[in-house]
């Protein structure tokens, strides 16, 4: 009962400030530009007959997967900010006054942000598939919009975005400082992890570890990504469901640690 109330309240929290649509707007623009841009490159290569890098059938999903491969940072940020802004603006005081059971509040936040992450996924896919399919069709490549595989990919992408938002919530409880959380998200997703993923492909044993990096796990879940396409060998990768479990485990562990530390502390 009170979990339903919490989810309703948390939903009002995230929809009643400007943040969601500012982030969504940037995400849609960024993802749409990447998908449209790469679509044009592939389309151009294809018609130039200099030999396509990939078979035509793999191109659409690769382009659509920009929704997650570049878009995932937005649900993470959104999830993290949903938590850190409570610390920053001291709104934990009224939140815990309304619902003194802090575990219920955090669970409600996790559920709400999971759903919001899926919402970000919908918008990101509209951007990547809209721009990508239009460009591909323009170059005479089948955008595969009727293919069941495409729609299975859509479902897995939505799950990935939802899990990324949940990871953001976990991160926010671990690092309640808003600035620190933003810096960590940006540095890790844009710099540290891409380097680690690249580095891990050098040897076999490091590739075994590298597949558990959150970004690799996310790409495994989605099933297609510009990163895996670029690094060539896709031999070492998790199954899609294993990728999903890795993301869920990261979210769960971070949230559990956070709930026992910053979330339990005195609110003053």
């Amino acid at each position: 009962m009170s979990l339903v109330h919490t989810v309703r309240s948390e939903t009002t929290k995230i929809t009643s400030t400007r943040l969601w649509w500012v982030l969504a707007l940037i995400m849609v623009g960024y993802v749409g530009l990447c998908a449209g841009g790469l679509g044009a490159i592939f389309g151009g290569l294809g018609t130039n007959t200099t030999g396509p890098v990939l078979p035509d059938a793999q191109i659409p999903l690769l382009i659509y997967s920009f929704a997650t491969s570049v878009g995932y940072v937005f649900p993470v940020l959104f999830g993290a900010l949903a938590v850190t802004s409570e610390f920053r603006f001291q709104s934990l005081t009224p939140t815990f006054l309304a619902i003194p059971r802090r575990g219920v509040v955090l669970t409600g936040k996790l559920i709400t942000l999971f759903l919001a992450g899926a919402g970000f996924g919908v918008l990101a896919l509209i951007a990547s598939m809209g721009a990508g399919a239009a460009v591909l069709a323009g170059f005479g490549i089948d955008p595969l919009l009727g293919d069941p595989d495409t729609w299975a990919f859509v479902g897995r992408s939505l799950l990935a975005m939802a899990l990324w938002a949940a990871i953001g919530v976990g991160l926010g409880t671990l690092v309640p400082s808003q600035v620190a959380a933003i810096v960590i998200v940006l540095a890790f997703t844009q710099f540290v992890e891409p380097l680690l993923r690249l580095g891990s492909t050098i040897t076999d044993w490091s590739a075994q570890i590298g597949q558990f990096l959150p970004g690799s796990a996310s790409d495994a879940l989605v099933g297609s990504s510009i990163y895996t396409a670029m690094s060539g060998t896709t031999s070492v990768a998790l199954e899609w469901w294993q990728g999903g479990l890795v993301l869920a485990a990261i979210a769960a562990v971070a949230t559990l640690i956070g709930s026992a530390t910053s979330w339990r502390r005195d609110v003053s």
Partner: protein
Amino acid sequence: MPTGVPIEFSGLTKRFGSVAAVSDLTFTVEPGQVTGFLGPNGAGKTTTLRMLLGLVQPSAGSASFGGTAYAKLDSPLSTVGASLEAASFHPGRSARNHLAVYAQAAGLPKTAPDAALEKVGLAGYANRRVGGYSLGMRQRLGLAFALLGDPGVLVLDEPINGLDPEGIKWIRLLLRAMAAEGRTVLISSHLLSEVQQTVDEVVIISHGTLVHRGELSTLDTSDTKQVQVNAADRDRLAEILREAGYTVSNLRSGVLVDNAEAGEIGRLAFDAGIPLTGLSQKRTGLEESFLTLVGEEGSL
């Protein structure tokens, strides 16, 4: 009409490292009256109230509402309304949405936010972002949050801070009316004079320790009762009073009469046919007793 329950503090203690912010506080706040929780800056008022509301974990002791700890209340916002001194809101949210967030969390009716804004006079600013609110408007919004669930108990930390004279008068009447309805009202302040006309009972702490509790009048320990009186013909008034045996001294706006009751002075002036332009009993003892209780070095 929701009725209040007593607030019970029992051996409540909080240490921050080596700092004993609150030490072994034990007292009860009764329904049906306004209780002032007083102490100088840093005395431990906010810490005590945060422990009462389950926001800060006590080092020892407990606090409850009619025997139930805040965290165990079935519907907290409908039982206890609280407003703490910190501005606890997201500046980018409108006042209506701010309240809607917590009304939904507590399962209150959809009309609760607007009703609360109406009560505190913010109905006209409901859709404005809270970040642009003035200090007084924020204070009112805090009060609206406290009133959201129409609770039987009100716990307000420094509710008068930042209000203009009209606002002070308004909140005074509101709190008195709520106490008269049988609710429990506990308000903190670091200034006795600020709440003197609002409270029935006082609980005074200093350095985290209880130093006095009782009715407001018990604080007035001075045995010199003074009356301030004024008339157009001030000289004649003073003369009459001296003849009646009073000690009289001149003030900027009237004369001060020692050891006097206002009623008696009024009667003397009336008998002498002197129209008065002012007459009031002075309670000089209150503030002095307060300062004595909290100690010379009571303030930070």
